[in-house]
């Protein structure tokens, strides 16, 4: 990449989908841009969001690491890489150590991948934030304000997307879905209602299960 600003969310999730257990994004120091674009802030913003998405689908956000290292800091880069390798080694295999079976993992990552074009729009429209320091980004991504936007615009879509992907295979009962996705059954009911209202799914009441509309 000529600039970390070209690092796309889809690269990260493609890497996870291909079985990588961790993804490292290296950028220039904030405020130190070789272009005039300061694309590393975009990379940071994208990585912070990707971590939230990872958390949302039940994977450990520590599996993505962003570090700001200059070309003159070979030692620091080596340290950062060694540290991250150790982190990933400690975390273990993707999905397995989070208690998600391979099929569910595949489904989750596929859902995210399909949603990325939409997530880009949300990020462009609602989450285009720019702060001076990493700490400020962390503060924002931990804030209520962010949580609200995320849950409404991305989180729900991710859960619904997973539900729909699950239902593509066969109709399921809400309890089965909750177990499959690793979320509470009340959360499942909430998403089912919302999806049903949008006409995406329907209740097969006689069999107490849900199917695609």
């Amino acid at each position: 990449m000529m600039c970390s600003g070209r690092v796309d969310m889809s690269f990260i999730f493609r890497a996870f989908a291909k079985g990588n257990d961790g993804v490292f994004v290296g950028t220039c120091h904030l405020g130190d841009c070789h272009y005039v674009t300061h694309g590393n802030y975009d990379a940071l913003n994208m990585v912070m969001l990707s971590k939230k998405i990872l958390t949302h689908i039940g994977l450990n956000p520590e599996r993505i690491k962003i570090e700001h290292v200059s070309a003159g800091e070979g030692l620091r880069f080596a340290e950062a890489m060694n540290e991250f390798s150790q982190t990933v080694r400690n975390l273990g295999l993707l999905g397995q150590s989070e208690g998600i079976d391979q099929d569910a993992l595949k489904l989750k990552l596929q859902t995210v991948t399909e949603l990325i074009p939409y997530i880009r729009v949300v990020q462009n429209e609602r989450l285009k934030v720019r702060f001076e320091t990493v700490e400020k980004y962390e503060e924002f991504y931990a804030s209520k304000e962010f949580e609200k936007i995320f849950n409404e615009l991305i989180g729900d879509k991710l859960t619904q997307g997973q539900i729909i992907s699950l239902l593509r295979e066969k109709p399921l009962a809400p309890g089965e879905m909750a177990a499959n996705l690793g979320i509470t059954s009340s959360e499942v009911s909430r998403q089912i209602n919302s999806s049903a209202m949008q006409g995406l799914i329907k209740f097969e009441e006689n069999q107490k299960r849900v199917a695609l509309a």
Partner: protein
Amino acid sequence: MEKEIESIGGKLVSCTDSDLGDVMIVGGGISGIQGALDLATAGFKVYLVDKAPSIGGHMAQLDKTFPTNDCSMCIESPKFVECNRHPNIEIMTYTEVKDVEGEAGDFTVTLIKKPRYIDETICTGCTTCVEYCPVVYPDKFNQDISNNKAIHIYFAQAVPLVTYIDESCRYLKDKTCTVCQGVCKNGAINFNQVPEKVEVKVGTIILAPGFEPYDPKLREEYRYGEFENVVTSFDYERLLCSTGPYEGEILRATDKKHPHKIAWIQCVGSRQVIPGGNSYCSAVCCTYAQKHVILTKDHDADAECTIFHNDIRSYGKDFERFYQRTEKLPGVRFIRGYASIMKEDPVTKNVTLRYASNDEGVKEEEFDMVVLSVGLTPPADAQSLADKFGIELNGHGFCKTNPVNPMESTRPGVFISGAFQGPLDIPESVVTACGAGSQCGEMLNFRRGDLAKAREYPVERDVSQEEPRIGVFVCHCGANIGRIVNVPSAVDYALTLPNVVHSEDNLFICSTDAAKHITSSIIEKGLNRVVVAACTPRTHEPLFRDTLREAGINQYYFEFANIREHCSWVHSKEQESATQKAKDLIRMAVARVSHLEPLQEFDLPVNKAALVVGGGVAGMTSALSIAKQGHHVYLLEKEKELGGTARKLYYTLEGLDVQSYLNELIQKVYINPYVHVKTDTKVIDASGYIGNFVTKIDSRGIVSEIKHGATVIATGAEVYKPIEYLYGKDDRVLTHLELEEQIAKEDEKLLNSESLVMIQCVGCRNEDRNYCSRICCSESIKNALKLKEINPEMDIYILFRDIRTYGYKEDYYREAADKDVRFIRYEPEDLPEVEDGENDDGKSVLKVTVTDPILGEKLEIDADAVVLAAAVVPTEDSKDVAALFKVSLSPDGFYSEAHVKLRPVDFAADGVYLCGIAHYPKLLSETISQAYGAAGRVLTLLSNDTVVASGSVAGVDESICISCGACIAACAYGAISFHETPHGKKATVNSVLCKGDGLCNAKCPTGAISLKHYTFEQVYSQIDAATNEAL
């Protein structure tokens, strides 16, 4: 060609007809190389002559370069290849100058090409002969630490990459061995070679013979050559280097063990007025010793490093931080004071030093190794060079140059660049090369382009419809990769990958010979894509892309797998996994190269005018030099008058009358019809790109636009307005510039002062400004000497932290001390204090209190005036100028050059150059060098009608563009806009403005816009290949 044989001094020589060129550069180190490349690009035919068997000079011997610790050879060697490939550069190595006749504009230089006993046109550099040669002989390139053979290649990246036979050869001695002739399959060895005389006619000459490291054998007390574990800093460079005598292991000569406890002794052969010493400061040793310490700690984190030093002279850009970084490392001691070498332990061969420690008195301590930080001295043949070229030397034996034009020798038409001027570091050697180049251009402008040839490439073959046929070339990089990664197994593996039809290994794939081999392999094996698994694209990608062009293949069908920096260097202790990783990297590169597309670079027209922002000495000098080469120059100055900071200077250390120099310069600027001066003028907007800038200016209320091809930023700097030491509250407290003005105006009260105190480092070398202002020590000494000249009775005290009179300025420091100027060192934790008070006679004085470092007691000085050496600080508007011209600032607020070492007057933004104190504080002569340097760089651009732009730009697939505008918002260059189509407005990219960062690509929800060469498909293929071993 039939060669005539004649006899010179009883020796047979063969003579060739005379050759014709524009410029001859004598000395092929980094300075000579830079000069050659600049001039050749600016339309001149250049002869680059070096007496060594290869170009490269001393920089080729260095391990890393301070303060970035870039690998020295890695940044220099691509320039070797560039010189070698340049159609306007004729490299002549192993060649010496015999004599020079004629005058500026028409010199005839007679050269003697020494016999290599090798036919350069036949030798392939295979080194089979080296293996068989029985004569083992100390290797000069490795400072005689390890051995080489009588026949050998000077160093692995040498240009030309051919062997030579030195005087240790048995055949040359007594004709007892010809084994090399027997094993050379090509019959390249020719013992009948005789020296060859060549005459070259040129218009101007640049002398860039460099320097000689100080020979510590000149003074017995250094025990060099006697105690084996006493080495010089140049020996140590080779020890550190992976191509060095022990392949990058620091070992002691005596027991081949790692030294654990190492001492550096500074100022060896420098700052000494003793027989065998040199009075000047060598200017580079403080910082290179710090580099050694950092690198030593990289090799062995537990190493104990001790530096015995005098003043620490961290006067260059980022040097102060580099010093702090070194000082903070664990196990590193800086001890101020002299250490003498006492004895060698007969058994362990450890060396004992005696020194005065701060707390324990005189002390003896044993070290495993002692490094002598030797200084720079004039080249050994300086006098004979001077005689041949008819130039004068200075008192130190370096070249005598014009103090206000350090590139000018005493003979018209002969220019000087690099360390032949005196001790200089690499960036200054590069700057003076560019500057000497510009002055050659001024003299030879009328014949520019007459002898120059354009580079010609074969017609590009369209292979886009063919199946990929990939060639994979895996490099050993000497031992750098080969020692860790199993290269042959990587080659075998590459052959199993899809579409790979050819793979092979090479000792140095970057060598000229190997590059030619890739070209011929492409043609012979019908390759249409190439992967090189070697080092970094940062330095070597242009070279390999060029290699593809040579073979008629689009240069974007090339992919680099970095198996050195990303693999062998970082996994040196895990050979097996490193080999596996190298294979993974190759697999990813192969996957990606299969998906690459041919891209077209395009020619942009170049507007032939230049804009210079800032009308100080830097801007004016630069503007004049450009104008003298036939280009219109717009010179902008925000003040009402030209002159800048120099308006406040009256004399220099060397005695120049600055005001009359300045007035003369201003006159020259106004007289020159090509320079268009606009004072009272501000830049309000800047747009465009290399070759085609448009700058909007406000000149006394009138707004207009200037179109120009190149931009020089020379906006100067300001002097810090102190808040310390009663400045502004008591009019007896002045800055050094104010003092200079009062001296020049012969202010009686000041000149009659009984006592005057100068305080150094006011406003810098602190937390707010973590840099050294470089010029203040020389400024204060200059003023002190002037005051002593006018009023020898005056008591002058200079309170300092380190006196940083680098280079020749050291002599003035000594002169000041000899004239009883008292120098008192203070520590930053214990600053001097200034108070209003009375002396014993009841006279109102400034009471200055400072701790005497030797006695440890407070000293009180009654001063009539206190002068503050106030820091040089960036101008207030430098941030605005940086934003307008899209150039970057360093953390200290000065402009950042493109590369600290090798592109010191270029900005990273193409077509924009910098000079003067806007870059960093510097003395007038240094500013002038840089100003000429920037002009030289501008000419490399303006001498050409077109400039090439990268093909890796964004493109839009309109059928899926949803007109959301996310890409337009993301583009800081304004390269994307909407245009109307039958299907509504769609995004479109102006390729000329696009810089290829790809931000738009990551923002586009539909993937309609994509960055060529980094498309989703191309990146995905690489990501997929990373894990898919069975691909």
